């Protein structure tokens, strides 16, 4: 009995060091941030000296037009980039899922953008968007068109950061979709061809539905990431002009460093965190539902034998 007990505890014993490190590295900062969000805290104060203000930071933010604007910009940005990236990424995967010569080199080329550090991506695009010497405007001029105010006009600036993000992250969707596509049952596709499906009908009726579980997880992963975007926009526009590209992470960093409101910045982070937690749970719930369904199907099949 004693031994059985000890045996049952053994795995936890081995897990303990990792659990402690997790607790310190993860829970401590989060706890710290949650506590800080209830304070009116100036960086020159030590945390003990800050005044406890309860939910004032949270309530204040809900009435803060600038915060709401940047919350809206974030959601708009995430929705737009993820939509475009999903369409392009899945589209490219469907297009390039064939065994012709040179395809593997092409695929490697396609995923390069993802491997470049975001700061570098930002700098690269900033040069390309440069109003007079950037490649885009130079090309436009040489073709006789008017230059475009890529980063100096609010709407264009939003479009510019979207383009840069799409350039960097479409490959992510692309490789996951391609992997999903290549693991589909080949014979089901052949059966569809025999059943008379055109290439387009195979995509709509067979490939996309079968890829759906992977696509949904990919979408949620990408969405979570898009809400946290910072570096590229920081380098490209630093949130401007006006608030047109000021996404939440940028606003948080400015609130902390420029406005010196640590408590408020912490409260903003928590709003973002809540949003991300909801998305993450949505993903887990989806996975769970899929697993439960598979288990149920398997059980039904076994009973029927």
């Amino acid at each position, binding site marked *: 009995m004693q031994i059985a007990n000890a045996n049952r505890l053994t795995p936890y014993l081995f897990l303990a060091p990792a659990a402690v490190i997790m607790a310190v590295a993860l829970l401590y900062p989060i706890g710290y941030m949650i506590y800080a969000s209830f304070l009116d805290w100036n960086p020159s104060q030590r945390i003990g000296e800050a005044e406890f203000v309860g939910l004032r930071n949270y309530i204040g933010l809900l009435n803060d037009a600038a915060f709401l604007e940047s919350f809206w910009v974030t959601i708009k940005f995430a929705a737009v980039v993820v939509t475009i990236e999903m369409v392009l990424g899945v589209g490219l995967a469907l297009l390039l899922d064939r065994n012709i010569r040179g395809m593997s080199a092409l695929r490697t080329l396609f995923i390069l953008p993802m491997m470049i550090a975001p700061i570098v991506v930002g700098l690269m695009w900033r040069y390309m968007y440069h109003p007079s010497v950037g490649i885009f405007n130079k090309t436009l001029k040489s073709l006789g068109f008017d230059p475009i105010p890529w980063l100096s006009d609010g709407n264009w600036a939003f479009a510019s950061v979207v383009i840069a993000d799409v350039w960097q992250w479409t490959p992510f969707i692309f490789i996951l979709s391609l992997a999903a596509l290549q693991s589909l*049952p080949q*014979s*089901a596709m*052949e*059966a*569809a*061809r*025999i*059943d*008379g*499906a*055109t290439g387009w*009908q195979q995509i709509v*009726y*067979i490939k996309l*539905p*079968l890829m*759906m579980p992977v696509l949904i997880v990919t979408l949620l992963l990408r969405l979570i990431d898009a809400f946290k975007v910072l570096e590229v926009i920081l380098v490209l526009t630093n949130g401007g002009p006006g608030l047109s590209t000021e996404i939440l992470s940028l606003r948080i960093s400015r609130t902390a460093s420029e406005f010196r409101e640590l408590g408020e910045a912490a409260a903003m982070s928590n709003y973002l965190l809540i949003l991300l937690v909801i998305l993450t749970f949505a993903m887990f719930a989806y996975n769970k539902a899929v697993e439960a369904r*598979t288990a149920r*199907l*398997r059980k*039904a*099949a076994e009973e*029927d*034998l």
Partner: protein
Amino acid sequence: MPKIAFDQVSKSYGVVEVLPPFDLTLEDSEFTVLVGPSGCGKSTTLRMLAGLETVTSGEIFFDDKPISKLDPKERDLAMVFQDYALYPHMNIAKNMSFALRLARVPKAEITEKVERVASMLNIAHLLDRKPAELSGGQRQRVAMGRALVRDAGTFLFDEPLSNLDAKLRGKMRAELAEMRDTIDKNMVYVTHDQVEAMTLGDRIVVMSDGLIQQQGTPEQLFKEPVNTFVAGFIGAPTMNFLDGELVEEGGTQWVRGDCYALPLPADIATRLQSAPDRAVTVGLRPSSFTPDTTQGAPIELKVVVSEYLGAQSVLVTHCGDAEILVETQSASPVRSGTVQTFGVLTDEIMIFDKTSGLRL
């Protein structure tokens, strides 16, 4: 229901030629079985017919119309795959009606057809389920049903029964045989199982190593095999092959080996007149032996093992170094370890050329 003709069709994957150029004609409304050991190119042949593989050279004709460049959907055929290839995300009704829905057949007609075929195959109660919720045998029926709801001119089957257990396989085989007699369509059926081939085929095409060895009715293949491969492949238990030589003694032709001497029947003897003293292979079916020594020519065999199969037993016997299978009635048991004399029905002897394997 076209007449299908392969004209010098060949298939290579890269530099590997898996099917050298061959001709093959499948008559209208015939049930043709392609049979041969695994890897001999049966599936490749069928898939070229279906349009799932390109032909490397040659042309396939449906009633004189070349079709090798056409898409599968333009060839008017339905196919049952070895792994069933059901659409995992569609329920059974949707699986079965997919082709009809693509062809924009009216809804009422689709429902009517699906229900008729489903009840014929005993899967009407499963229409709302997903493929994952079915057992292997049920999936097999659905795959069959999906092909049958279509009014295709040609039906292709690629080892549709090989994933089933023996009992279910027997049952499905019987149902297929019934279907063959009621449905007046071209059917091309691929299998490695000679029993399936013999029971189902109007005509059987025996393949080996990418080559067509022989084609004909089951009876022709059993009684008149052209070479040792076909003779050994068709029939169970398999034919016994013994080394021997032809000799003439006392006015009759004999075939003689280490432990036997059998007189040749008149027709073979006349055919072999021109080839005296020649090394040959003798083929004896296990069913050509009888314990009644008053019949046929006597042969002495040492019984090693007796395999009881029910009404019949198969005796594993030795004749010198060679192993010989003998089929007997279990009602008259033979003791293992004894030496017995059997009668050989000499009418059923087959003589093959030893080097080429061709029947003489």
